[in-house]
């Protein structure tokens, strides 16, 4: 099993969710995060104090999928999230050793 973490632009979220569902990835967990990277932020001024805001709102998706689905999921995300502009985000893949469904204590891929 692999865990896919994708950090994407908030405005692409609905599209990504749809693309993943199409290829059969149902379960996922969504976090509101702030991202820092190459994408330059913007300046905000409050009563003369200037702040450079370089933490931009992003959506992070975490999903654990069977190994065979990894590449399909990555492709689905790429297709739906890509706008070609700096700040589109990243996908990271790592290993998961065990998965358990709390409801019925199923383990392994059956639990996903």
């Amino acid at each position: 099993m692999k865990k896919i973490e994708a950090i994407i632009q908030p405005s692409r979220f609905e599209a990504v969710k749809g693309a993943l569902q199409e290829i059969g990835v149902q379960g996922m967990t969504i976090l509101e995060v702030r991202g820092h990277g190459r994408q330059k932020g913007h300046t905000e001024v409050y009563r003369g104090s200037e702040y450079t805001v370089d933490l931009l709102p992003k959506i992070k998706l975490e999903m654990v999928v069977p190994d065979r689905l990894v590449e399909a999921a990555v492709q689905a995300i790429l297709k739906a999230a890509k706008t070609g502009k700096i700040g589109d985000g990243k996908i990271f893949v790592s290993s998961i050793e065990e998965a358990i469904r709390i409801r019925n204590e199923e383990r392994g891929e059956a639990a996903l």
Partner: protein
Amino acid sequence: MRRLWMVLLLALSLGSLGAVAARSAVVPGLAVRSATASVAGQLAQLERQVNQARNRGDNAWMLTSAALVLLMTGPGLALFYGGLVRKKNVLATLMQSFSLMAIITVLWALLTFSLAFGQGTAFLGGFEYLFLHGVGGAANPAYAGSIPFETYMVFQLMFAIITPALICGAFAERMKFSAMVVFMVLWSVVVYAPMAHMVWGEGGLLNAAQGGVFPTLDFAGGTVVHITSGVSALVTALYLGRRLGYPEEPMPPHNVVLSFIGACLLWVGWFGFNAGSALAASPLATSAFVATQFGAAAAAIGWAGAEWMRNGRPSLLGAVSGAVAGLVAITPASGFVGPMSALVIGLVAGIVCYLMVTKVKARLGYDDSLDAFGVHGVGGTVGALLTGVFAARAVNPIFNQQPVGLIDGHPAQVLDQMVGVAIAWALAIVGTFIILKIVDGIIGVRVPPEHEVQGLDITQHGEEAYNL
């Protein structure tokens, strides 16, 4: 650094205490008022004093009403709208209302009050009140005999502020701030001032109280405020086009609590709007106050009840939207109808606006973001027409004790109301369309798409509403 400052400030203060040294006080002599008048003279003086005494009560109510009407725009309407937009656009939405509180005030002082309430023609006022020349503490009986003309001016100013602010609901989340400013200045001159003059101005074409050609009953602004703004809203929504992603992408209100606060303040402030339009703390003011309360209540029930029947659940947003729709519809009628008629008008408006906003809009497909047309345009039109139906001389004998509305025995009034409504629609459509063309030509009305995606708060104003 801190120490240096302290020393400086202490020095300054000691110096100035010295200045109080010595200087002889000259107490101004007291004016002695001799009072040896005859009974006739005393009576005459008493009558003047009585009038002054009454004026105090009326002025007390009218100043309160003016404050209440300002409260309707800020924070009322601003919050009502601000809660309905997405988080990234909330400050921009508040800024639209707030900047109008500032800009329209100055414009009114310099120009538009005169255009609306100067004598002029049947269509537009003259220039005699430019820079508020001659608008002072004395009453102007053409408008209100028992309050300072200046009170009338500032009360009317609050109407001139909220009217354009209502339009903002239609183009929320996508209009350039600079374009909005220019648009609103022009709109106040081209649409608002003439409409206000026709309905309420001396010699106005539709002025029912002063024998206009088409006497349109509009107690507190159904045509002047709600139809003009609501219809202009529709035109801007059509002209600007839909928001990016509408209607596929969900755009739920980012904070319904804010909208709730705004709606409640609108309701409370509306007492100033409607009952204040009696221009005195008279029984008529009470009657308008009661109609306002009843119209709002019945419409909230109408809208939420319709939801309950169709969705199985009433929503808070539905209930408050209904209340606002009822307040809109009762506005022209408030000083002409009794409490039971107010309940009917409210109920009808609540249901009609519900259908408009939830069914008709979806079918037609325009993006009136916050339903400025669905609530104010439609509710205002419904209210203006029903005013012609329910107006009663028992409540307000405006036509010298002759019957007033349809049920009262004067069916022709409904036609007069239609003329007033049609003129308001026409003026709003033509005026708004022309102004939009001009502003679009000069500065462009819509923000670039990437700004729309990022949100207007950051791109138009360089700030964010909520920070860590």
